[in-house]
């Protein structure tokens, strides 16, 4: 198990992940971030907003950066012909 922090930057501002998430070594942190982004987007779209300008920074407890997942990576947006 490892504890990773998923700091969120989006249209509502910055939300630091102070608590962190326990992930097993088999869990993919990027997949976890993508699920999280989709959860947030699914609610925002109910208010008529699709804001893909946000991102999640993934870091370890020691502060080492694991990467960044942008909101636009979490969905496939089709706007028609």
């Amino acid at each position: 198990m490892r504890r990773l922090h998923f700091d969120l930057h989006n249209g509502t501002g910055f939300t630091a992940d102070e608590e962190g998430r326990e992930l097993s070594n088999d869990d993919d942190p990027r997949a976890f971030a993508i699920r999280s982004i989709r959860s947030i987007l699914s609610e925002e779209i109910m208010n008529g907003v699709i804001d893909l300008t946000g991102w999640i920074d993934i870091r370890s407890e020691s502060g080492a950066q694991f990467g960044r997942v942008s909101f636009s990576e979490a969905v496939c947006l089709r706007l028609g012909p």
Partner: protein
Amino acid sequence: MIEAHLAKLKFRHSLTGAEEEAVRAIIPPVRRVARAMTVVHEGARLEASTLLLEGFMCRLKDLAGGKRQITQIHVAGDFVDLHGFTLKRLEHDVMTVTDCTIALVPHEHIRQLIEQWPRLGRLYWFSTNLDASMNREWELSLGQRSAVERLAALFCELHVRLQVVGGASESFNLGMSQSQLAESLGMTAVHVNRTLRLLRDRGLLRYRRGEVEILDLDGLKAVADFDDRYLYLNADPL
């Protein structure tokens, strides 16, 4: 130790001295259980029901692939799996959220109690009906409330339920991680974190590592459109 349970019973219905003694008589010695322990396993044959006397517990169901839904949070005084008295095997697990004090009440004691004291049988029937009412409210939240409304409703409900058993306070240690809140509310932990931040920014609630601090109860109720009628605080006599 049993006071929280008696307080829950007596908040809604009077108990005679003899009825109270009859309830006390079926409670075996209490035991301590550490946090995050499964007390009732799905499908296991049950011969006793779990009375929670201190701490928080939850009911939960798991799906393949690691997905989990927490379907109820229990506070001190709750007969967590009284429905196990008739069902005998549950389709869900029961686990501790925090360190807990519990009593495992043998089903045979419950059977004798409700046969000798039919009115107590009706009160415990009421108790399982109340659980069902809270589950319906849970469904309402999951199906219709937004994330911020869902969180607000949960904390409003817990505040009332703690008040009923004498643990009323604007601050309490729920002991749940944000991941467990997420499993309760059909969200992800990151989404929960963001939503808690919105509640904090609005001056309604602080949540830090399981510690709940309600800053503005009326404001929280307004956000959730919280109506406590489903908790039957003014129950008719039985």
